[in-house]
Structures are given as structure tokens and as C-alpha cells.
């Protein structure tokens, strides 16, 4: 709770709490004695605050809204706005905690796939406004021997995000936003989503489990050899083909050699 040491603070304290009592001797209806009472006047501001922020969340989470219906979504979003209002005026940064809120939102507990769909939509928004970086082609790997290549780490475009879910998160997202035909989905079917934006258009790809393992390891800073090893432990894995796909999808912006030895990695190469 903050102290309403200022008139602004006193009004701020009313905005997210519909039951907060309006203090005496702070403001009045109007110089000309407008007929609407103070509660209605404050309600205009309370309403603008909550509706505009719920609208912002609805714009960020259209698939979630489609899965729950607008009534349910707006009720959930209203609770979220009141418990987690924005910390700054850039609304493209608002709502990243909404998936975690849905995780713990009892009325949504039967829709256990919902938080991951929300995570995918958040990754989409982050990718939409991510920095512009030119992807590189696979030929940056050329001219190296196998051992050299194996010791490389890749740098990824800032839009790239990987989401591994126990639910068919890409299919749910694509079907509810009209990007693909509705099918009878098995909601227990795991899917991994890759979000990327090589140029202007955000792309969402469905990854095979071993491809997701490979990419997760590379995103965590592992070498190509370590990432391939992790992927092969799960499934047949065609390293050259998988590597080519990463480049073709415009995910990679550079590469560097891993430090040879973790205990002596301060030496210049």
C-alpha cells in the first residue's frame, strides 16, 4: 500500500479497488453542480482503467480468449489487471505474467492447456517487437573441419523463443486464431513451438521432440556437439538436416567457438 500523500495518490488508491470509499474533502462533482454523483464520476475513471487494460490483454491473448469465450476471458483479465497492473506506460510490455496467473486461477483449472497457449501468445508479442537483426546463412559454417564445427555455439535472433508443452499448443493456437482448420485435437498430445521473426512477419513452427531438444540446448549456450548428443539420446537425429533447417528458418545470427576448457576460459584465442 502506498500512502496517499498527494491528491493524485488519493485518486490512484481508488482506481483498482471498486469498493474503496471516496475520501471526504478531496474532490467534488463540478463547479456548476453537475448532477451526477461522485461515485459515478470516479467510476468513469475506474472503468477506463480496467476496460482499457483488459482490452490490451485481449489484444495480446486472442487465442486464450477464443478458447475461454469473451465473458470468461474478461472476468479473468479483470482480476489480473487488479492484482498485476502495468508498471509502466509501454503496453507491449504488459501481461507477461498472465500465463502464470492462469496457472493459479482456480476457475481455469480444468483448462490445463490454457497457460501454455498464453505463453505462446506472449512469445509471439515479444517476437513482433524484437530488435531487427539480419539472420546469417549456413555458409558461415563452411571451411571448418568436423571437430571445429562440433565445438561451435550459435547465436540466435532476439525474436527466437522455444516453448515445449504437454499439450498441442501450436495446433490449439493455430486453430483458434483461424490459421488452420479445426480438427478433433487430442489435448494430451505434447507439442513444441518455435517462434521466430526473421524479417517482419512472426512465424510459429511445430518442432519434433528431438529438434526441440537440440534447439533448447543451443539456446542454453551448448555446443553443436553437445546439443546433437542430447537430441540423439531421444530419437534418430539427422544433424546436418536439422542444422540446415535452423539456418533456413532465419534463426541464426552468428556463431562462435566455445571456450575449450571451462577452468581456463580467460585466455584469448
Amino acid at each position: 500500500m502506498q500512502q496517499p500523500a498527494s491528491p493524485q495518490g488519493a485518486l490512484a488508491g481508488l482506481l483498482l479497488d471498486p469498493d474503496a470509499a471516496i475520501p471526504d474533502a478531496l474532490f467534488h462533482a463540478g463547479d456548476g453542480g453537475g448532477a451526477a454523483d461522485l461515485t459515478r464520476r470516479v467510476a468513469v475513471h475506474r472503468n477506463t482503467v480496467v476496460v482499457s487494460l483488459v482490452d490490451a490483454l485481449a489484444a495480446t491473448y486472442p487465442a486464450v480468449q477464443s478458447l475461454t469465450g469473451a465473458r470468461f476471458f474478461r472476468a479473468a483479465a479483470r482480476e489480473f489487471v487488479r492484482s498485476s497492473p502495468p508498471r509502466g506506460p509501454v503496453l507491449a510490455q504488459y501481461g507477461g505474467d498472465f500465463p502464470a496467473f492462469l496457472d493459479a486461477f482456480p476457475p481455469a483449472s480444468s483448462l490445463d492447456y490454457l497457460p501454455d497457449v498464453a505463453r505462446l501468445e506472449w512469445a509471439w508479442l515479444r517476437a513482433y517487437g524484437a530488435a531487427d537483426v539480419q539472420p546469417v546463412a549456413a555458409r558461415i559454417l563452411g571451411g571448418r573441419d568436423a571437430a571445429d564445427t562440433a565445438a561451435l555455439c550459435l547465436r540466435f535472433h532476439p525474436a527466437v523463443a522455444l516453448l515445449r508443452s504437454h499439450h498441442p499448443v501450436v495446433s490449439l493456437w493455430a486453430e483458434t486464431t483461424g490459421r488452420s482448420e479445426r480438427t478433433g485435437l487430442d489435448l494430451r498430445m505434447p507439442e513444441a513451438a518455435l517462434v521466430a521473426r526473421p524479417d517482419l512477419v512472426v512465424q510459429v513452427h511445430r518442432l519434433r521432440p528431438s529438434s526441440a531438444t537440440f534447439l533448447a540446448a543451443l539456446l542454453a549456450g551448448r555446443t553443436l556437439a553437445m546439443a546433437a548428443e542430447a537430441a540423439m539420446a531421444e530419437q534418430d537425429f539427422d544433424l546436418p538436416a536439422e542444422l540446415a533447417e535452423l539456418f533456413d528458418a532465419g534463426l541464426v545470427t552468428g556463431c562462435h567457438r566455445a571456450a575449450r576448457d571451462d577452468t581456463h576460459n580467460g585466455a584469448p584465442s
Partner: protein
Amino acid sequence: MPGDEMPFGTLPAAAGTSFKHIHARDILEGRSPVAWFEVHPENYMVDGGEPHRLLGALRAAYPLSMHGVGLSLGGAGRPCPIHLDRLRALVQRYEPDSVSEHLAWSGHGGIFYNDLLPLPYDEASLRRVAANVQELQDALKRPVLVENPSRYLSFDASTIPEPCFLAELAQRTGCGLLLDINNVYVSANNIGFDPLAYLADFPLRYVEEIHLAGHAQDSCATDAETRPARGGSGGGGSAAALLVDAHDRPVADPVWRLFADVVARTGRLPSLIEWDNDLPGWPELAAEAARAERILWGEGRDAATR
């Protein structure tokens, strides 16, 4: 009367509109009859991608106004330095023809409320706002415009009428003013004053830009979430009805008439049709701008009462 020199900016003395991405193709690929465009800089405070691509294309083709909603010039404290830095970077990158903000606040105590909220009009507020405007102008190294807000409440502590407050602010800081005529109409209805008397007192010599927008009639906002009523274009409601600055429909006729009155006194000024919610197709928005343009060129009450 505005001369050829406009020290506050280089927007043309003509009609402009809000720039919304759903209209980007119409505006950027056609030959738009609209002379200039306005954006909220907060919508472009991302690292890259489509927002910057579109704004860059717009900036290359048209005069641009950046109209902030997040700086809280009317707040209890100083503007957030992080937000001020972001705004400065955007202004440096796009070099807009005009930069404006509001006599209002939207954040307090680390929370952003996404609304333009009122402040008391007294000497202490005036000093605070003047210091904030000065800090903004120093950061941007250029004068800014400050807009009169739409109001629903009056603070008991207020001692200075709004037009005097704004005149004094302009005098102390060297800022210009942005006169939002819909806000005058909405506030006059809600607070209970005569919009003509307000405009007679308004320091028009400082006005560098005019805003026009549609308003809604408040449908008794007692529920947790209520949308403004559709249909009523304002002005004809019961005495008790509040008007809400909704930016979601055409400009109301009484607001057009006030605009014609103001233009008759000021001469042509950059005049914006602001439309932020329930966006129309581009032809409808462009037609609103064309109506403003006719009034600017002296068709006056004929176009205002069309």
C-alpha cells in the same frame, strides 16, 4: 494569427488524423488526402519489427506528430526517467514535427493506469507541472505542446481556472498548447461550465494544434466493466449524463461548431481527428479530416453544421 513561422513545430496548418496500423496500407500505398499524422510514442517503444518499419515509412512520406500519454506531467512527482529516455530516443530517431503531452497523469506509485487522470489546479500544482514540462523540454531540446484534459471531477483544492492554469504554464515554461475542443465540450458538460466562456478565456495565442474527437454518453458506470453507450453522439442526453472522451466515433456536431468558432479567431492551425477505439475504415476517417479541412479554409459554420 499564426504566421508562416511556427516555433513549436512544423506541422502543416491543415487536417491530420491518428495513424493506426489497420489503415497503414491505405495511407502508405495510396495518395492520402490527409496532410499529416499523429501517433502515441508509447506504441513504438519496442526494439524493432513492424511498428518501426511502418513509422519509418510514414515519417518519410508525411509530417508526424508524437502525442504522448505516459509521461504524467500532472503527476505528484517528476516524470519517470526511464520513460523520458525512451521518448528522447524516439524523438531523436524520427524527428517528429511536433511533440505533445497532457495536463494529466497516468502513473503513480510505480503503477501505470492507462487513463488521463486529473490534478488539482493550484499554485503548488502549477509549480510541479511547470518543472515537469521544463524537464521534458530540456530532455528533448525542443518546446512541447500541452493539452487540456477531459474532466469528470473537480478537486476541492483547485483555485485556478483551467484556461488560466494553462496560460500560466505556457508563460512560465515556453511550452505551446494543444487545444482539444472535444475535451472542452466533455468537461463543460461534466463539470458544469459554458464551453463558449471557457474558450473566450482560453489563451489562444499559445495554441499550436487542435484536437477533435468523438465522445460517448456514460451508461451509468456502476458495474465493474461498462462500455459507453452507443448511439448518442453526445450533447442531447439528460442533465445527469456524463460524457466520456471515448475517441470511438465521429466528432459531434456541437464540437464542430465550437471548432469553427475557434478557427474564426485563430486562423488555420494543424487540426487532428483523433480516433483510437472501434476504428472505422480509412474512407470514413479521411472524410472526417476532409470536413475539418473545409472548416479550416473558412467554410465555417456551413461545414460545421453540415
